[in-house]
């Protein structure tokens, strides 16, 4: 198969499929073990300087915000990150933790471009931005989840998105059409927030699944946070809803309102006012730092963060939740 075109972007996370298989064989226990721990313990044990890390879903929807804030609190540096993100990656960028990005989208949605991203990239603090489409990055995770080295796609062809990615274009040996090959992405650690999990890490979500199934299977370490820790019998009653089985999971953190100020389908709606606090604060580096000082470093853990936000606000978010009809 001849390579017709190669993206100039760096393959930020080179991979070895047999090493991944070996990892999954030797480093991932099949035993049902209690993995419940605090954000502090989970991040300190599994996130490390220089690791390749991803978050799911994204900063305003079912996002592991309590874990993302803990990463900032522990000042995990030189992170290599794949991102579509909103607030979670903005916080990391503002805190200067990100060294390299496999980027699809980092922005503030209806509030526009991310000032934190602009400062971090335009100043050169982020050393490289490798471009991908949202589909492509998800298929990279899917390839890793499948245990294969790449997936072919007809996305990105003919564009600068491909040119500045690490994809390659080849002629499909079966039909002769040109396809882009996107390489498997095996992440060192991922953070995922779910509706419920048992203490072993069997996890269920409601609403859209985003790329939860793919990223959990594409990672060496999975830190799960959950709105609710439920007895295993609850999981076994609805096994059809399990999106992440326990053996993929390394840590289970109980994090009610763990996605705040983002939403959690059917549990609470987004806290738009609180989201806007970041939109405004992040316009300047000083403002962003003041936000981090108050909402991240100024509280010792997620419980204190929730106290800072206040019950009244959280109740309003619950009122604003999507309701099943």
């Amino acid at each position, binding site marked *: 198969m001849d390579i017709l075109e190669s993206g100039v972007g760096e393959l930020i996370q080179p991979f070895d499929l047999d090493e991944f298989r070996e990892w999954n064989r030797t480093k991932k226990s099949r035993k049902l073990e209690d993995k419940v721990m605090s954000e502090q313990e989970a991040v300190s044990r599994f996130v490390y300087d220089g690791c390749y890390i991803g978050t799911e879903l*994204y900063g305003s929807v079912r996002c592991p915000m309590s874990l993302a804030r803990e990463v900032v609190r522990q000042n995990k540096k030189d992170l290599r990150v794949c991102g579509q993100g909103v607030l979670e990656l903005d916080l990391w960028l503002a805190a200067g933790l990100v060294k390299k990005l496999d980027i699809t989208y980092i922005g503030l949605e209806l509030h526009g471009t991310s000032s934190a991203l602009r400062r971090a990239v335009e100043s050169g603090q982020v050393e490289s931005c490798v*471009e991908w489409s949202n589909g492509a990055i998800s298929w990279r995770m899917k390839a890793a989840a499948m245990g294969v080295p790449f997936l072919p796609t007809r996305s990105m*062809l*003919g*564009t600068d*998105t491909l040119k*500045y990615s690490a994809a390659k274009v080849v002629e499909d040996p079966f039909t002769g059409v040109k396809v882009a090959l996107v390489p498997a992405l095996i992440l060192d650690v991922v953070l995922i927030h779910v509706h419920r999990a048992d203490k072993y890490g069997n996890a269920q979500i409601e609403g*859209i699944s*985003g790329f939860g199934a793919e990223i959990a299977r594409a990672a060496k370490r999975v830190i799960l946070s959950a709105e609710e820790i439920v007895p295993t019998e609850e999981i076994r009653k609805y096994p059809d809803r399990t999106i992440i089985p326990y053996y993929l999971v390394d840590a289970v953190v109980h994090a009610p309102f763990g996605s705040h100020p983002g939403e959690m389908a059917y549990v609470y709606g987004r806290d738009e006012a609180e989201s806007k606090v970041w939109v405004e604060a992040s316009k300047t580096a000083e403002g962003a730092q003041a936000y981090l000082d108050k909402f991240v470093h100024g509280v010792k853990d997620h419980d204190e963060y929730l106290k800072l936000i206040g019950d009244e606000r959280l109740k309003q978010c619950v009122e604003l939740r999507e309701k099943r009809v």
Partner: protein
Amino acid sequence: MTETYSKTELMICVAARLFEDASTCFIGTGIPMLAAMLASKTTAPNLVPIFEFGGMGAILEDLPRAVGEARTFHKGIAAAGICEAMETAQRGFIDYGFLGGAQIDPYGNLNSVVIGDHNHPKARLPGSGGGNDVGSHCWKTVAIMQHDARRFVSKVDFVTTPGYLSGRGARESAGLPRGTGPAYVVSTLALMDYDPDTCWMRLKATHPGVTVEEVIANTGFKLIVPQEVGQNAPPSAEELRLLREEIDPERMYI
């Protein structure tokens, strides 16, 4: 009585009228969401909106503020995931994609990555998101843009999302699915389509009160201007009522 309305309201109305009833449409963040919602309440009640993180067939009762918000699958037919949404497009099931961007060129290529050089950008923009996938796989795409010469440029700084690339046949040569490409551009000044022979952007109809000269002056490349240029109808009282009272009562966009 003459109703007053903003350029944004008019742009949303003109975009909304392009939605075909009972079609599947990929909806991006922002103005496309308002247009889809207006269409679903007027001319396209059986519209099937698809959002990239997996929301399919929602009844759009409240304006989604993000492509993953629960409103994107409110009373929906499915709450799936991103791979399912993108693969549905890739296998030819999505009729239209509605997109935005920071820059557009005469072939409908869109930029949402950088202004300036990629490695040393003057401005780093959010990135492709699902834009590239939507522009690659949907049968037809519609771009919705503010109209000025900084946005309508002869060459975009970065081709994030493919339009017709370098012209007729270029999409197919690059390997993109046959028979796909940009159909319309809705701007704050006019509605544009593409010349079928050259795939170059063509003025189709100006908005009320906007002259052809004004459109030309605000476009950074030579638009094809046919002899007959149409005029878009102003927003109806009902369209404005829906926009202001039901779709965006908090005035986040309008």
